[in-house]
């Protein structure tokens, strides 16, 4: 019996080749897309799970609001862990990581010697051997117990060991840092998985830090982690830690007045990557929002594909009413017919699924490139993939096959054979509903894509308060030491160079330095204005194109300028003084410092446009970390080689590292660009699948109405009348979809735009464009079939009687 089912199924599919191909293709593309999204989502959700105790590890996070500055900070104070030690039975172990940014050293650069050159490294952190008690970082050489206990010892990853020594058993070897200190390697660990909220190559022992870089209470920046005992009461522990924090804070009373607050949050390790938006995290995290968005898109695309499949299957199966009649007359019981139709449907689903897996495998490298991921088919992924695919095959196969299986098989054979059973296309309310459903999703995705692109475009063209075009940033002048100043002067002499400035703090760079500034020497925390505090030279504003609103720029001729500062408008607003020019400002850092406001500059965006501009202050001090060069030339290639020559003359053994400021700016929005690209790809796929379905349905409708078209033509209808008649039925549905999708998309994208402090609005023409696109695409798809039907000789369709 089963052989007969398979044979009939095979022949029936072969007879309707076109339909079968559309059906299989649509479902395969949909399933493949969905598979890629599943891989992406699973990857995002797997962050930090490599830690055996992942569910018991927490990071101490601080949330504070002080004088209008509210924020969540991933770093807390250095003495905190010691204060906790031994006092709380629910804490099993603790450990800390101190990234360079928490050391308040400038420039924050690590250069390790390899042969005669220095390599600049970014993934460097200070840690203790207790790190191995909390995190799961297996060693390939050395022992965790004997690692990072002594000053000037280091643990490195396997690939770093290979990079510097070409082998992994390098315990006992040394690394020279910044030409000055020598670190002995005490351990080599396996590379940290990509799915980790930190990814360091060098772990330097905490005890190597000089006294002056070990800060006390009041200075956050150390990343403190706790390994909790099972069942620990987190809320209680947070309250206890808060008590300790407040006790040691500068002014405990300040936290309870004027809307100020301080909170301690024990952020679960597994939430850090996706759910924590704290500042100063060890790495840029993902976003649970995008995980949700992509999950929804994945489900929607799968739904579109399934709907297609069901729509085409049921449309086609109504042609088979006659076969049902014949089979019943010949003695087939209903259950055999049910089994036959289900077999057929499940068979097609199975084939589509196999093609989908193959397609996903082919597309994976492209998708990885788009999403900046390293996803792969592994035996581990197959272990959950295969069972879920089997479920999908059965569910989709059953749903798509259920209409013919249960509905058609119930017909009385005599009715079917007499042609009394309506097998027409019309009255297919379900089918119309499904088409509306598909197109609503497609239109939703089109609107989403357009809004994202519009916002990216807005960001790209927004005036930022500084001029990022034609500025070259040489990023590693720190390696030149004091000679950086000479390079700056020499570059300035080159033809094509407008100006040069020396500072690692650029509006598009990563180096940031927040500090508290006070209006008087009492250092009353209630009056703190938290500001960016950037050491720059007198050429900085000119080179960056930052405008002065009042006062003056720094000048080499004014010796008192070393205590002068230039503040931005956001600072002025927060500072409160009516005329802040020439006022004094105090800072408490290695003793009390007094500064004098000599100028006010226009606000410029130095953070992502997701943030409002916050107070920023320029101070006249030397920072030789980077040189920014404003150029004006038509021959960039020549100028670049001249710049490199100048560099080589000063430092023949070092490689110059540079980039253009507008590229750096664009890099800030790479994740949004990426989302945009992924969005547009998925949208295209969703629409293509929907169109495949529409194409099939239009062909089916034309087939069903062949006779009607013939009659109408005989009665005088011309081709355009026939085309518009056939198309209108579907276009109507697309219009209904526009009405349904628009408000939902508007609401969803409005929500997304809230992420940006500086954002565009959703213009009416975006909706019009999305709707228009959908209508045009649908019309083209349908007219292909309608034109074919309309051109048919009516004699053909009327002959068969």
């Amino acid at each position, binding site marked *: 019996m089963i052989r007969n089912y398979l044979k009939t199924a095979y022949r029936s599919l072969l007879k309707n080749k076109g339909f079968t191909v559309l059906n299989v293709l649509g479902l395969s593309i949909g399933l493949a897309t969905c598979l890629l999204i599943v891989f992406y989502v699973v990857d995002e959700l797997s962050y930090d799970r490599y830690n055996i105790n992942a569910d018991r590890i927490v990071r101490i996070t601080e949330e504070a609001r002080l004088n209008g500055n509210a924020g969540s900070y991933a770093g807390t104070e250095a003495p905190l862990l010691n204060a906790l030690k031994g006092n709380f039975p629910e804490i099993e172990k603790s450990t800390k990581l101190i990234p360079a940014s928490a050391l308040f050293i400038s420039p924050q650069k690590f250069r390790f010697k390899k042969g005669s050159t220095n390599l600049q490294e970014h993934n460097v952190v200070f840690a203790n051997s207790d790190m191995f008690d909390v995190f799961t970082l297996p060693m390939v050489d050395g022992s965790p117990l004997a690692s990072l206990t002594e000053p000037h010892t280091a643990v490195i990853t396997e690939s770093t060991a290979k990079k510097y020594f070409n082998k992994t058993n390098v315990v006992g070897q040394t690394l020279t840092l910044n030409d000055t200190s020598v670190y002995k390697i005490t351990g080599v660990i396996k590379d940290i998985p990509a799915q980790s909220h930190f990814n360091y190559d060098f772990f330097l022992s905490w005890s190597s830090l000089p006294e002056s870089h070990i800060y006390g209470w009041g200075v956050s920046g150390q990343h403190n982690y706790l390994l909790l005992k099972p069942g620990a009461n987190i809320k209680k522990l947070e309250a206890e830690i808060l008590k300790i924090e407040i006790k040691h804070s500068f002014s405990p009373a300040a936290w309870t007045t004027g809307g100020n607050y301080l909170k301690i949050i024990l952020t679960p390790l597994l939430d850090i990557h996706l759910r924590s938006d704290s500042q100063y995290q060890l790495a840029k995290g993902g976003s649970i929002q995008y995980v949700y968005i992509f999950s929804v898109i994945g489900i929607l695309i799968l739904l579109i594909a399934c709907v297609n499949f069901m729509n085409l299957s049921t449309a086609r199966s109504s042609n088979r009413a006659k076969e049902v009649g014949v089979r019943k007359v010949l003695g087939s019981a209903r259950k055999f017919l049910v089994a036959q139709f289900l077999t057929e449907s499940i068979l097609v689903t199975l084939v589509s699924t196999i093609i989908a897996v193959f397609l996903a495998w082919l597309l994976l490298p492209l998708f990885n490139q788009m999403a900046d991921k390293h996803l792969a088919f592994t035996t581990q992924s197959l272990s959950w993939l295969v069972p879920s695919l089997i479920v999908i095959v059965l569910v989709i196969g059953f749903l798509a096959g259920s209409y013919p299986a249960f509905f058609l098989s119930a017909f009385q054979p005599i009715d079917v054979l007499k042609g009394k059973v309506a097998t*027409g296309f*019309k009255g297919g309310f379900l089918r119309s509903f499904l088409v509306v459903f598909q197109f609503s999703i497609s239109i939703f995705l089109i609107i989403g894509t357009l809004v994202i692109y519009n916002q990216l475009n807005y960001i790209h063209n927004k005036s930022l308060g500084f001029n990022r075009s034609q500025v070259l940033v040489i990023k590693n002048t720190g390696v030149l030491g004091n000679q950086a100043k000479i390079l700056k002067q020499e570059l300035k002499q080159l033809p094509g160079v407008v100006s040069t400035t020396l500072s690692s703090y650029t509006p598009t760079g990563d180096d940031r330095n927040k500090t508290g500034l006070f209006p008087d020497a009492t250092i009353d925390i209630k009056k703190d204005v938290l500001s960016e505090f950037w050491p720059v030279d007198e050429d900085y504003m000119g080179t960056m194109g930052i405008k002065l609103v009042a006062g003056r720029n720094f000048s080499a001729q004014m010796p008192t300028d070393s205590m002068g500062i230039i503040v931005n408008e956001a600072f002025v607003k927060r500072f409160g003084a009516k005329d802040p020019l020439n006022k004094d400002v105090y800072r408490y850092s290695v003793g009390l410092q007094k500064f004098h406001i000599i100028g006010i500059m226009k606000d410029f965006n130095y953070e992502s446009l997701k943030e409002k501009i916050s107070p920023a202050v320029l101070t006249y001090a030397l920072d030789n970390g980077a040189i920014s060069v404003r150029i004006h030339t038509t021959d960039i290639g020549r100028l670049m080689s001249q710049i490199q020559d100048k560099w080589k003359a000063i430092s023949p053994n070092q490689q110059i590292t540079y980039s253009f400021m507008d590229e750096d700016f664009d890099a800030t929005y790479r994740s949004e660009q990426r989302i945009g690209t992924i969005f547009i790809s998925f949208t295209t796929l969703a629409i293509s699948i929907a169109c495949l379905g529409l194409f099939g349905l239009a062909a089916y409708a034309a087939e069903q109405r062949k006779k009607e078209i013939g009659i109408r033509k*005989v*009665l*005088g209808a*011309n081709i355009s009348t026939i085309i518009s008649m056939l198309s209108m039925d579907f276009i109507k549905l697309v219009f209904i979809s526009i009405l349904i999708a628009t408000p939902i998309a508007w609401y969803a994208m409005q929500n997304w735009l809230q992420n940006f402090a500086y954002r565009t609005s959703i213009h009416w023409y975006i909706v019009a464009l999305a709707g228009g696109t959908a209508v045009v695409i649908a019309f083209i798809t349908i007219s292909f079939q309608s034109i074919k039907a309309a051109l048919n*000789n009516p004699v053909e369709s*009327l002959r068969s*009687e």
Partner: protein
Amino acid sequence: MIKITNLEKFYRTEEVETIALNKLSIEIATGEFVAIMGPSGCGKSTLLNILGMLDDPDEGSYVFNEIEVAHFTERKRADLRKHNIGFVFQSFNLIDELTVFENVELPLIYTGVPASERVKRVEEVLDKMQIMHRRNHYPQQLSGGQQQRVAIARAVVNKPKLILADEPTGNLDSTNGNDVMELLTDLNEQGTTIIMVTHSEHDARYSHRIIRLLDGQAVVENIMV
């Protein structure tokens, strides 16, 4: 009204070429009622389709109202057709989704008659065909005879000069069949030219002239007295 000369039509498949019409020449005058008879496959329907400008001849000439139409474009043929020719089919060919009224109205819509005028003309012709009481019914709700009345109403609503009927009584019992033939005779008496393909000698007797076809050629012509 109609003059065809040396008309040829072939049907080709990959292997064989079948001659449907073989150098056929016929003349039909305005106001005539002509029956075309012959065994299955003799070319009756092909001839009717060409006369109705639904199909092209391969060779020969077809002059309709003194205009050579043999190689007209589809658009021109359609235009000429909708203003001059009405069709009646064996299987009625009514559109199931439209009511009686809407079915009859269709040709008027395609010739661009204004809505108010359409209502008047449709009601007039439904009245004449004694099918007015069924105006809001759908074709499936009617008997075969009633359906053919609707089809004839539809064929004449545009006041065509020529009606082409392809076995108009083929799907009807004898009573309904006779009614339909009476209707066609009335129309002819009012001046409409009628060409009818039929297998029925009985029906053919309603006509003025019978053209008998065999293998695509006119073999006999009987003049009815």
